[in-house]
């Protein structure tokens, strides 16, 4: 087996770019599942919803889908607030969040899919951007803008979420909710409100990740299901509730996938990725950067 420098460099860069995208689709799960203990299995459906919102604005107004998704992220934030309120009143408040809550999010997943089918039909949708067909070349290494732009915005978003959580009062309250809700209540903070806002933040990131997805590949309403395993794998590999861990886990899986595809054949990529996940869990059960 030979490892030419150009191929190795390209595999690493492609893996990092892919990892950036994986981080964007997983950071919301890291917040909802890792910090709030809300098993939002419908998260990928909101990513697809984000894709369609970006698509419709791009098609009708010609605006850049990623810029649109950032501008419209408050709408997803509000959607997240509403969803968490329903979840809280119907399940969490009654102590039925474990199994029935899971069923609730399954239902949301299917309802979102069906709604998208009814509104947009079942055909594949994709967007046109000014950079979709541009590739920068630096020596032997390719930088396809279709992946570079989502990567840059994704890393900015993930770092922003991390700074927000560690450098603001509200962010620290979210981290406190993840550790001890009772202590937070004793300090006069309403943990339900904090959880609601944090859950809304996770849905807002899903909306932005949706725009990345439709820039990278064609989207149809049921595509989200294919990302359920991936988002939870990245979250667990990185360490539950660790945003830096999510970013690192996403890069590890991205590079593993890219390297395996380049040198050993793409059909081995899932086995290597999930093998890494198993190994990490065996030697460090809390994940790469989990406590």
């Amino acid at each position: 087996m030979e490892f030419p420098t150009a191929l190795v460099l390209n595999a690493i860069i492609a893996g990092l770019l892919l990892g950036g995208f994986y981080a964007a689709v997983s950071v919301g799960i890291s917040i909802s599942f890792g910090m709030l203990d809300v098993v939002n299995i419908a998260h990928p459906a909101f990513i697809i919803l984000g894709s369609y919102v970006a698509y419709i604005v791009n098609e009708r107004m010609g605006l850049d889908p990623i810029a649109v998704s950032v501008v419209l992220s408050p709408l997803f934030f509000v959607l997240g607030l509403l969803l968490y309120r329903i979840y809280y009143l119907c399940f969490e408040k009654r102590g039925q969040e474990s199994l029935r809550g899971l069923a609730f999010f399954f239902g949301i997943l299917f309802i979102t899919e069906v709604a998208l089918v009814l509104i947009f039909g079942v055909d594949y949708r994709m967007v046109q951007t000014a950079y979709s067909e541009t590739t920068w070349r630096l020596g032997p290494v390719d930088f396809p803008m279709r992946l570079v732009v989502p990567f840059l915005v994704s890393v900015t978003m993930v770092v922003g979420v991390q700074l927000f959580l560690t450098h603001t009062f509200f962010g620290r309250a979210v981290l406190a909710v993840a550790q001890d809700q009772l202590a937070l209540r004793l300090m006069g903070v309403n943990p339900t409100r904090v959880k609601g806002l944090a859950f809304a933040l996770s849905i807002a990131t899903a909306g932005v990740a949706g725009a990345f997805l439709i820039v990278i590949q064609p989207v149809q309403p049921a595509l989200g299901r294919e990302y359920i395993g991936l988002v939870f794998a990245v979250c667990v590999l990185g360490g539950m509730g660790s945003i830096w861990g999510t970013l690192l886990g996403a890069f590890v899986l991205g590079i593993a996938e890219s390297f395996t595809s380049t040198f050993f054949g793409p059909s081995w990529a899932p086995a290597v990725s999930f093998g890494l996940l198993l190994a990490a869990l065996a030697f460090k059960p809390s994940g790469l950067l989990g406590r």
Partner: protein
Amino acid sequence: MNRLTTWFSAGLLALSLALAAPVHAQQPLKIGFGMSLTGPLAGNGKAALIAMQIWAEDVNAKGGILGRKVELVYYDDQTNPSTVPSIYNKLLDVDKVDLLVSGYGTNVIAPAMPIVMQRNMAFMGLFGLNVNSKFNYDRYFQIMPAGPEPAIGWTQGFFDTAMALAPKPQTIALVGADAEYPALALEGARAQAKRTGLKVVYDKTYPPNTVDFSPILRAIQATNPDLVFVASYPPDSAGMVRAANEVGLKTRMFGGGMVGPQFAALKTQLGPLLNGIVNYETFAPDVAGKFPFLDQFLAKYQGRAVKEGVDPLGFYLPPYAYAMMQVLEQSIKAVGALDQAKLADYMHTYEFDTFVGKVRFAKNGEWAVPRMLTVQYHGIAGNDLEQWMKPGHVTVLAPASYKTGAIMAPYHDNKK
């Protein structure tokens, strides 16, 4: 008194039987199938369903078949093979359908076969590649024009075109998705490579949820193949085409078995990126003269497809979905009954006139003569749909009787 009661009862019985007979005659003729209405291949499934509904309306407007109105009974298989057996069992046991046809694609036709065979039903398949090679079922028929040796016929045009290049290509890379259709297409491509003496320098599959195809294409490029044969589904085809552009793939021919570029969605989304690609199609406006009756169907289909949000061109699958039902219709009318054995015998024996031309089946239920078009896209500028509706952007390379021009090679010099 007793005798009077007996006569009265007998009279009532005769009257009820007489009344019941026409009622039975008015029972609709039920045709059952599963169809991908959600999931990755739903765009194609829904387009096929529209074509089948148009057929049912056309037939019913003329009084139905055997004096019975046609009713389509269908369920969404979610593009998921595991749902197919229960759908076909329900169609037969609960809905009591009179006839069965398949949903769209190899992945959902194969799991229906054991049930269909158990019940000895005649079975029309809609675009399944080489499904009957494992089952050898004598009542299976396939409307896809891949020919009596489908795996070979599917790729025949690509390889014949390649081997006519000067100098002759020496090496080939094969790549496809980990799924039923790509596996069978790659099987055929391997056989073709062996037949033509091409050295296979890359032969790998990828998982269906692959996001970035550039590592795969770089690995292929590292082997420096003369030809690259791809068997992929729509999202992968888009990923492959984009990645080929991004890594600057250099090869003489690229494409072959990509599902997706046949549909308006990918045609318009990929636009100029399709230039230079050699792939298969079942129809192109450039050979419309060879399909004299297709306009009638497309006029009906295209208006409805736009409303339903599916393939507004309808060149690839819908005409064949309609033709599949025409074969069934003509067989039932000729046989005059729904006897499955007689229907199968008739389909084996006679030629059918359909919107996609004359259809005759080989012993294994495939088309007796292959007619997949191998085409090359060129001169595509921008992403508008209009350019695809007119001749001029698709050169038909094979079969010879449909050929409209010569290949432009290598691929990398004809991308723009």
